[in-house]
């Protein structure tokens, strides 16, 4: 940033030797901009110009006032991507840091666009890929036209299941962790149980859960809860036990009693570990969530995958996978944002 201000306004400045302080010139940025959107434009061109050779049934759907088939939805998505990246590019033009980021992603976005184009031609236009396992990218979008509210219902079901398990699991995990970390007696009796049950994949409990819990939903919540619970409990306990003795002594000389030592010293100190626990647990949770839904739930994205598989509707399986990728990434992103907010006191994590 410092070097940038001195050279601002000189498009033909000398090339800097250091990569870190490298400035993206206007010309280079425009090239990156073209590369970025070229891939998606090529995909659009491939879709429009390449004739539909194979015999594929293209159904029209009524969406509000419009009539759409999956191919037009695919084009809309591509056009949207072009618009989003163009907007991002124009926005980034005015900031060196954003320019750098945008330029760095350009080759990847180009390849994504080109790959979509090739896939489209091979998958939908020529039907060269083994069917019905590998439909083209446009076909994958068809479920969103065919049954949008049904898919939304499954998303909400998964989200509800996740939220219950997440909240109960974190609460139980942090509570157990505090008790283990604070009371040596609890550590003695509970830690071994935690250690052994911690390595068992949650789905192994499924037969019990499905018979012992009144509803499939509560059984699934239980399985997701234990995913979070054990991981978070042991990491919370570790965090609490590793609190430096000095911190407790400082608090005691200031007149603190046990509640202050637990809630204002030990728990804040354990916060980084608690978040590590949450991140690890989330990985298990997503796996468990999908598996549980595939095996014994009346709804959810896992259920949707399983139900579609029975009808060999693999394009729906792909659609569900795309939704999962977006949904789970969003969940991780939100957790990450909360984490960086809560842990902003940590060295190196503070962003100015």
């Amino acid at each position, binding site marked *: 940033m410092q070097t940038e201000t001195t050279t601002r306004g000189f498009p033909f400045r000398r090339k800097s030797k250091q990569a870190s302080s490298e400035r993206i010139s206007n010309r280079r940025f425009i090239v990156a901009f073209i590369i970025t959107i070229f891939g998606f434009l090529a995909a659009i061109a491939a879709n429009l110009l390449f004739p539909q050779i194979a015999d594929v049934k293209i159904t029209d759907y009524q969406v509000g006032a419009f009539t759409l088939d999956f191919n037009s939805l695919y084009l809309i998505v591509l056009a949207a991507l072009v618009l989003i990246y163009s907007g991002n590019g124009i926005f980034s033009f005015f900031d060196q840091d954003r320019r750098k980021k945008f330029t760095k992603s350009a080759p990847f976005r180009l390849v994504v666009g080109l790959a979509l184009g090739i896939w489209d031609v091979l998958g939908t236009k020529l039907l060269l890929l083994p069917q019905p396992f590998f439909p083209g990218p446009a076909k994958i979008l068809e479920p969103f036209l065919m049954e949008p509210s049904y898919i939304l219902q499954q998303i909400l079901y998964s989200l509800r299941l996740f939220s219950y398990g997440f909240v109960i699991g974190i609460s139980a995990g942090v509570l157990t962790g505090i008790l283990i970390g604070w009371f040596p007696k609890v550590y003695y009796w509970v830690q071994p149980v935690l250690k052994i049950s911690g390595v068992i994949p949650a789905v192994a409990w499924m037969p019990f859960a499905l018979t012992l819990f009144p509803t499939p939903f509560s059984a699934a919540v239980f399985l997701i809860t234990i995913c979070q619970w054990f991981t978070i409990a042991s990491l919370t306990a570790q965090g609490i036990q590793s609190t430096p003795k*000095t*911190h407790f*002594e*400082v*608090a*005691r*000389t*200031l*007149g*603190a009693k046990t509640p*202050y030592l637990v809630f*204002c*010293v030990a728990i*804040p*100190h354990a*916060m980084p570990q608690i978040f590590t626990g949450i991140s690890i647990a989330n990985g298990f949770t997503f796996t468990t969530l999908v598996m549980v839904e595939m095996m014994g739930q009346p709804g959810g994205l896992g259920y949707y995958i399983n139900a579609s598989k029975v009808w060999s509707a693999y394009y729906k399986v792909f659609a569900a996978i795309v939704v999962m990728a977006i949904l789970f990434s969003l969940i991780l992103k939100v957790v990450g944002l909360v984490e960086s907010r809560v842990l*902003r*006191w*940590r*060295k190196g994590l*503070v962003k100015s």
Partner: protein
Amino acid sequence: MSDIILDIKSVNRTFVSDDDSTTKALHDVSLSVNRGEFLSIIGSSGCGKTTLLRLIAGLDTPESGELILNGEKIAGTNPKRGYVFQQGSLFPWLTIENNIASGLKARGVYKEHKGEVQQYINLIGLNGFEKSFPHQISGGMAQRVAIARALINNPDVLLLDEPMGALDSFTRADIQDKLLELWRKNKTTMILVTHDVDEAIYLSDRIVIMTPRPGEIKEIIEVKLPPPRHRGGTEFLAIRRDILEKLHLASAAPQPEYTI
């Protein structure tokens, strides 16, 4: 000055290490501290000076003997005995402001004394750093915060355990002056553990010289220099030479200064 605030009566403390060897950290230590005085305890490492300070704080208990503060036997910690640790004792997850307030919050009296937090920030000259986190400020600033955090509880005695030990000499001189300023203002009794002879002479009314193995009080020196004291003054240097000689003679088997 004959008003005694703290009376230490033949205190003993022995530590047993893992291999069952024992270290006599304090052997029959007796000491009276006057109300409002600035007392320094000086000695080589392992002479029990920190142990003595921890006993006064109530962080440790003696095997025999007793410590009496204001007529009451010391048992456990009490905010009336403030303690400033060596480096790195601030809570890293709290802002400077909240670190100072933690003294009040720990006692549960934050609401009543809220305004004092800003007063102490002004007093230690950290305006503008209220919302900073400990890792964002320098070591010298951090120690000033640690002193303010202990003082906000308005203690009868402030115990300082080498609070300037890890600081460079300029920062150290700066904090010493700050400490004197706070001392004169609050009239808190100060007990400072240090291994810096100059620091002890610059700040103290009396200097306690301790010797190791077993930890004992060798001598107590009164410093009768009027403020402001000059670190290069003739009398200052005379006292310094005197103490250094005593410290040197103090250990029966002189330790090598550097071990490789």
